[in-house]
């Protein structure tokens, strides 16, 4: 329970200075340093304390909660602090004048917020909002800082990470689910019957939980992938990368670890198998992409290291023909590599927003990119320029309802039957983008599928537009086309895992 100023001088502050009645140990969970030289600490007694860093003396102490204060963030102006606690409550402390118009100011605990059910592990303070993260992420705008009522003044809550946690082996019809400490491999069920829209068909083969793979050690799994043929499986933790060979013999499934995996500089941010399952692309934190060749019966070797990115690569998209690979780095630059000659091909013009998903069209080799501000672009790799459709889309602008969505697109795929179809999804909707249809404008309804159904054929044709949206599955974790007739959708009801969570802190509730 000490906090210190960087060497050469070390000031030791004993936070557990006061003798508590119960001899619990005091743990400082978070500290912050103010420009005035005040050290702010948040500890397990629920206190937020202000220390003079030179003297090591306590200036102020605020008991904000009866449970532990876990996280702490200071606003840029240093007049506001947000504290996260283990009960899921966050508190705001404000530096307020003691007398109106006076110079003397004091920290005062003001607003409590309860948006989480469990530990608030991390908090951040933007100029106009408090951001807190635990089991969910919440952005709470500060109403007094928001200039006008609108999109910015709305509380936003995110339950799932904006990352793909499911990967699919299309040919083998396997799904790999990534959990924090383990992986689960499932075989999809199937049916031989057909039915009408909305009908639930009887299964002739039940979905099957093939294998559960537990990660060794306390580290969380960072990324995972299963190869399209379903015979390779890879995952990476913060320190190690693991590759397995999956063997299906009859009903049983066995996993064999691939020996002598090339030591990679940790950590790998993204794994991606090539469409023919011959090679594996590993995106590293150092801004390079490692290309591994997979060998039968169970081995691999490092083929190439593609460089060029200045920051960590966090998204990869190989083309179906194995010719191209697109990689997104932390500075939001998209680099395209030629895999045939292991050459850097081009850089997509950088946009001032993070890339949330990208994919290369199997027939046209057009790179479709979704940005976190909901913008969509199509970039032709061979021609090294935006396509005409993309330019038309940019000039016309996207529908307002599309732009005001909270959740970014996390996965993009294509319809092999119709090359004009792009399939996109986020946590709340699934969209078929039909490039052959006209784009909607703000006056038309974006989500018009239910109204279209009621219209006669001729009127329906007039009302059609490019965005065909389905909101049936929520929250939607994953969607992919297995083949021309089959689409797999992974839905994860929140209550399923909320009920399994342990109680955050045992406390007596009034009236119970």
């Amino acid at each position: 329970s000490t906090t210190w100023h960087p060497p050469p001088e070390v000031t030791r502050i004993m936070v557990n200075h006061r003798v508590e009645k119960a001899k619990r140990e005091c743990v400082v969970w978070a500290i912050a340093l103010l420009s005035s030289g005040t050290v702010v600490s948040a500890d397990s007694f629920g206190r937020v304390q202000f220390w003079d860093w030179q003297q090591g003396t306590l200036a102020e102490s605020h008991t904000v909660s009866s449970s532990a204060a876990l996280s702490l963030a200071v606003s840029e102006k240093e007049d506001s602090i947000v504290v996260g606690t283990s009960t899921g409550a966050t508190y705001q402390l404000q530096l307020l004048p003691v007398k109106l118009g006076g110079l003397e100011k004091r920290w005062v605990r003001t607003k409590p917020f309860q948006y989480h059910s469990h530990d608030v592990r991390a908090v951040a303070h933007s100029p106009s909002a408090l951001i807190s993260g635990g089991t969910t992420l919440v952005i709470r705008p500060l109403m007094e800082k928001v200039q006008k009522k609108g999109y910015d003044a709305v509380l936003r809550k995110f339950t799932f990470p904006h990352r793909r946690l499911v990967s699919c082996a299309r040919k083998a019809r396997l799904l790999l689910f990534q959990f924090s400490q383990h992986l689960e491999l499932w075989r999809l069920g199937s049916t031989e019957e057909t039915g009408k829209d909305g009908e639930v068909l009887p299964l002739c083969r039940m979905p099957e939980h093939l294998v559960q793979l537990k990660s060794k050690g306390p580290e969380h799994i960072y990324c995972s992938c299963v190869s399209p043929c379903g015979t390779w499986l890879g995952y990476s933790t913060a320190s190690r990368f693991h590759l397995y060979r999956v063997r299906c013999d009859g009903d049983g499934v066995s996993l064999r670890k691939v020996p002598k995996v090339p030591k990679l500089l940790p950590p790998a941010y993204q794994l991606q198998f090539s469409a023919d399952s011959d090679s594996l692309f590993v995106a590293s934190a150092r801004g390079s992409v490692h290309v591994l060749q997979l060998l039968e019966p169970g081995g691999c070797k490092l083929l190439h290291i593609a460089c060029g990115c200045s920051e960590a690569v966090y998204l990869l998209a190989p083309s179906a023909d194995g010719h191209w690979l697109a990689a997104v780095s932390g500075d939001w630059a998209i680099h395209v590599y030629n895999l045939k000659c292991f050459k850097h091909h081009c850089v997509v013009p950088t946009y001032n927003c993070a890339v949330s998903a990208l994919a290369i069209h199997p027939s046209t080799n057009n790179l479709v990119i979704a940005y976190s501000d909901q913008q969509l672009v199509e970039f032709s790799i061979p021609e090294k320029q935006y396509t005409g459709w993309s330019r038309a889309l940019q000039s016309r602008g996207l529908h307002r309802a599309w732009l005001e969505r909270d959740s970014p697109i996390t996965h993009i795929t294509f319809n092999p039957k119709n090359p004009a179809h792009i399939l996109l999804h986020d946590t709340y909707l699934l969209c078929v983008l039909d490039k052959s249809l006209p784009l909607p404008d703000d006056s038309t309804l974006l989500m018009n599928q239910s109204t279209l159904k009621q219209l006669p054929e001729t009127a329906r044709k007039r009302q059609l537009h490019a965005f065909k949206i389905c909101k049936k599955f929520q929250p939607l974790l994953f969607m992919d086309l297995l083949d021309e007739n089959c689409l797999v959708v992974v839905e994860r009801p929140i209550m399923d895992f909320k009920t399994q969570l342990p109680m955050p802190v045992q406390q007596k509730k009034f009236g119970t």
Partner: protein
Amino acid sequence: RWCPRGLRLPYLLCASGDFVKVYSVSTEETLRLMGGHADLVTGIQLNPHNHMQLYSSSLDGTIKLWDFMDGIPIKTFTVGSKLLALYAPASAEDSVFVVIPKKDTFQLVSVKLAKGAGQDLEAKELSVVLDGVGASMKHIAFGREGEYVVSVKDVNLQVYFFKRKLLNRFSLSTLKTKGGDNNFSCVVCHPTEDCIATGHADGKIRLWRNFHHRKEYTYSTLHWHHDIVMDLAFSVEGTRLLSGGVESVLVQWHNESSCQKDFLPRLGSPIEYISMSSDGALCCTLHTDNRITIINSNLRFSRSIQGLIKSRDVKTGLVVDPRTKALVLNGEPGHLQFYSLQSDQQLFSLDIVQRQYIHQAGLKQSDLVKVAFSARGTWLATVEESEEVTDPELQLKLWFYNEETQSFKLNTRINSPHDNHITDMCFRDMNELEEDSLILVTTGRDCVFKVWVMVEDTDPEGNVSWSCDFVGSYHNYQATNCCFSEDGSLLAVSFEETVTVWDSLTWDLKCTFCHPPGNIRNICFGRQTCSKYLIGATDYGFLCCWNLLTCALEWSAHLNVVVLQPDPLSEHIAAVSWLSKESSLFVFKPNEPRPIYIQRNLCKEKILLAAFVPRDEPEIISSEKYYWLRRSQLFFLTDTQELMTLSTKSLEERLTPSSKQLAVEESLPVTPFSLLLGKHRRQQAQEDTELGKPVVHNKQEQASPAVKELLHTPAHVLPSASFLCTIFINSLLISKENKSAEEIADEVEVESEKAEDDSDEEDVTEMEQEDTSHTELLGEMTCKLSKSQEKELRKIRKTDYSWISAF
């Protein structure tokens, strides 16, 4: 109503009704009672520039400045409109702030207190500070050094900065989600910092800061109370905040932190007001049950000032403890209070229910509903029931007075004595008889009455306990009232429309009476000379008197009797009626259908209960009109739980010259009632002298041995009235013959002196006439007399006339 805003050692000042009371903090005594306002005192504030002076405001539209050390008014400022609250911040040099009504809303105005020589001054210089404020004193607070004023109403808070002339308004959401209710209940300001504390209807306390910014204002929330926060108070330094509410717990918040708080629980009843002393050493809380608790700065209970405890509902009635002559009624929830009328203090509080009372709305809890004392006060019977309407949990408890511990000890507990609510309960009231003949009767809605007797236990110590001896019923009607005759030989039980009379030895049904339509509301036996009569009042507004010897209706009168109360020491019975929003008192003797005393318009409130409290010594009462108050004093309890009494003092004052009396009235602590009565009397006196009616004086029968014998023989052993009538009248005639001429002359003089007095009596008859005309209008007869009675009356009239003609 009380509002202790300004506690100063060693005095506690408190507004109470039309008065301001000064208590000593160390002895809890009422040191001074400052009267002078003509209406309710709504606010008191210490003069910030002289702490020996006090401002008080009243609904009568005046502000008075008092020297409370001597209890004298220094100045009276007449504002003109009703004053609902008063504030005297130190920053205002020569003005105070008051809340006055303006159409349907209220406004805060500053009143410039004119400097003048005289005692009565006009204060007409008003300037409006805030519009649309709350009417309650708790809805406005002045900030640090009087720089700003805060007002709360509904979900809106407004702050007005005097120097900058800036008005900021803040609103909370009106939505009531998750049991929240943002309506403000009270507001206080931090004494040294710019911080406003507000209490809310859902129990939250909000601490507002930065409120000079319309946008960047902020507040933090403290939440412990589960129901409305009734009042808040900051300590002198502002480091501590006290809050109180319905939970009867005083909460002390340290440094505005929700984690550091102290509690002072079990204060007895909901907290209404909190006030800090100016030196911060003490604080006091005022409770809804009319009690002040003084609390140390370290949150320890110090002492309490309490008179008559106001309970939620007086179900027990007014009962007099024969031992202490104290008034006994519901006190704290589940307790019985013994209230001493002489000292205006609670003697003690007896815990009957013996269960923790939880202060929460909607919770069904047990409470005391009936109480009865045996004649000598050695036994006490109590009935408690839960608030369930359909299936009440009943308990009958019998308590024995322990001489050693000087308190009641539980002797017998009977679970479910009846299957439904117990409606009445009485002991057989016999002073002379042995203890073991003590009988308790309870009546219930389960259509039976039960007789409980003492039985000796089988254990060697020979303790006694109570058990049921007899169960009586009548045609399966609900039993509503019961009472024993004075000698204990007869028991009357009313069953809805019927009164049944039972022999208390054999439990045989002797006779029944009824006066349809309408259920019997009250019954009582006449006492002493009138013990052969049974009086009953019905729902349909009839007061009936039945003769137990002839088993016939003696007389009846059309009167909506709410309370029927016999005097235990005389034959007088007091009946209180409730008609067209006023209560009237009638005192009568059962043997005379004409009341001996009528007091119309006794008060505007409905009188629910009455009790005769025996005087320690019979008072010498000069006026015949109040002769019935000689041995007992009559007390009333209204539906607002105000205890009132009839005072004979005002009569004496009335006999003194009016100018002198006015002076006396001003200086004497007169009760509101006596004032009222005084006014009324004066008015009547004027009317009467104008009318100049002939004087008829009825000389009261003097101590003739025949009459004495007649009056002091118990009713049930007397021969019939028709037989006695001639003897009675003859005895009167003899007295006439004995008078000498001198005596007659004297009497005439006395008569002229007492003209006023007699004219009052004339007034009574006049009112009686009014009454008859009134009832005739309603199509009812006032008196229904039997033929024999009419004959008797005619006889008496004849003799009367001859007697007067002899003069």
